[in-house]
């Protein structure tokens, strides 16, 4: 019984990690290419979730909703890049933090304005509603397995995009020397808009996928955003590979910590305080892990910054 439960928790951790990767990949890409710290990334996640829930409710199709989430988040990303973010590239991080903090206020209140204060609900598509049997006699929800698959597919796709395509070559060039590629005739403004929209679309995808597991509500992006920051700090800012490794590590540590810590503490204290203290400690575990990583490698595990 314990083994089956453990496998289930590991899969949960993977699913959580993969979802964090979708968020962290966009953040780290935007930071790597443009040197911009975007606090409003969580808002794009929220936009994706709301677009998916609204379109799915109107049309009855989760898949149309999913497509809508990509389009809406990419469009929102492109619009804020052109109207606001573009003015911030040459500013210091302080101005970027403040301006994107202001964007969060605008997005959160704007979404509440349009959709009201009540959470929306998004159903898991019929195709993925069942459970898949696991070795050991238990079963695991197909939808969560699908999220893991999507995450792996996106990771491979991003790797190919960046290492094999012309756009990826420009992104890499933009990371190392932006004056040079501008001098070579690449339209750097458009490149930045495209990269920003791509990062936004990934965040929107994550929001839509998670929207079917929990309720879709204003402010849902903020806890995830902070975790995504933890992920890219652990992985090394600007590194997609770091984001993947960091995301899976954070997902596993968080999920397994919540599962194992109370059990471990129950070995030497009474059950109720073990549950309470275990939960409190487990919620801090990834931050402790991040502090450890930074204490040893201040630039993260796979730093892309030289």
């Amino acid at each position, binding site marked *: 019984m314990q083994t089956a439960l453990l496998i289930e928790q590991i899969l949960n951790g993977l699913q959580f990690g993969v979802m964090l990767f979708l968020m962290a990949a966009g953040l780290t890409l935007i930071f790597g290419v443009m040197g911009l710290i975007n606090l409003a990334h969580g808002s794009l996640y929220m936009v994706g979730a709301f677009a998916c829930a609204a379109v799915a409710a109107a049309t009855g199709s989760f898949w149309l909703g999913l497509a809508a989430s990509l389009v809406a988040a990419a469009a929102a990303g492109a619009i804020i890049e052109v109207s606001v973010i573009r003015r911030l590239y040459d500013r210091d991080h302080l101005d970027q933090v403040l*301006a994107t*903090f202001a964007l969060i206020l605008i997005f959160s209140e704007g979404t509440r304005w349009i959709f009201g204060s009540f959470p929306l609900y998004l159903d898991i598509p019929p195709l993925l509603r069942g459970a898949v049997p696991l070795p050991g006699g238990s079963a695991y929800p197909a939808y969560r397995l699908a999220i893991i698959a999507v995450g792996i597919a996106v990771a491979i796709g991003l790797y190919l995009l960046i290492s094999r395509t012309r756009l990826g070559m420009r992104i890499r060039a933009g990371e190392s020397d932006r004056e040079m590629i501008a001098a070579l005739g690449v339209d750097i403004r458009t490149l930045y808009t495209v990269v920003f929209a791509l990062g936004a679309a990934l965040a929107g995808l994550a929001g839509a996928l998670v929207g079917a597991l929990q309720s879709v509500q204003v402010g849902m992006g903020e806890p995830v955003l902070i975790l995504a920051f933890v992920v890219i700090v652990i992985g090394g800012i600007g590194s997609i590979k770091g984001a993947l490794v960091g995301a899976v590590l954070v997902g596993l540590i968080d999920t397994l910590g919540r599962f194992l810590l109370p059990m471990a503490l129950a070995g030497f204290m009474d059950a109720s305080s073990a549950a309470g203290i275990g939960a409190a400690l487990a919620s801090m575990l990834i931050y402790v892990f991040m502090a450890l990583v930074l204490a040893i490698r201040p630039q993260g595990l796979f730093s892309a910054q030289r």
Partner: protein
Amino acid sequence: MTISRETAFNALLIVLLIAVPYGASAMGEPFYVTLATRMVILALAAVGLNFLLGLGGLVSFGHAAFFGIGGYVAGIAATHAFNNTPLLFGLPGTNQMLIIWLVAVLLGGLAALAIGLISLRTTGVYFIMITLAFAQMIYYFAISWPAYGGEDGLSIYVRNAFPGVNTLNGLHFFYVCLALLAAVLVLFSVLRNSRFGAALQAARQNEQRLSAVGIAPFRVKLAAFAISGMITGLAGALFADLNRFVSPSMLSWHLSGELIVLIILGGTGRLFGPVAGAIVYVLFEFYLGGVTERWQFFLGLILLAVVLFARGGIVGLVAGKARHG
């Protein structure tokens, strides 16, 4: 010697802060006294952050941690005093502000030392994010720790006491807070003009040069971080007493963001920047909140406009010259 426009503006702020709440109280409008107290306490917290951000150029996005620690010190001490139950190590709870402040300052400083020791190994964006993450760590601890209210927070049934002052009177409590703000502003001004302040500002501009003259930048920055945490912790204790309530929201990253906003709105590195910022921010909040439920939307637009077009903040605007630090 001519008085600069900035000095005149600062003097005006002091006069307004002393007189307006008195007038409001005399006209039977205690609500405005509470509003002014809120301004003063937020200003105090932001002055703490201004040490680090304004002088040292270190953007801490986790100052809510110290604010919340101060708040919980006040809340926990008062709860134990109210219930007459012993605290950690059998110590009694207390409702004496002086003791609470001391503990809040000490714990705020200790937490800042611990967080600073790790965070200051990093720079730039890493520093912003790691301070944010540490604050979140404490936030989640407060939420999931059931002993002191968890998510629901902790009520302080009777506002804590200060010798010789009736703190239950809003105006008296306001002047206690204002006196602390004044003291901290004096401290800020003295430290800024001291050798330590010079070293801190040099650390922002060029660390190599600072080490070349024989001063370790790390120690200077760590000291600034600790002082900053102490002041913000003190402000947190006052804030809990103002609301007679403390909850994890005092530790949330929104609050860290707000403290940064106050400083930039007022003018980074300027003595009265956080004060002007807090006054304007709380007024915005209040008036926009009265006009529309959607005030956060418009607050966001205004902030965006300030960042994009009005660099140097309010004091910078008044002083009529570019920001100097």
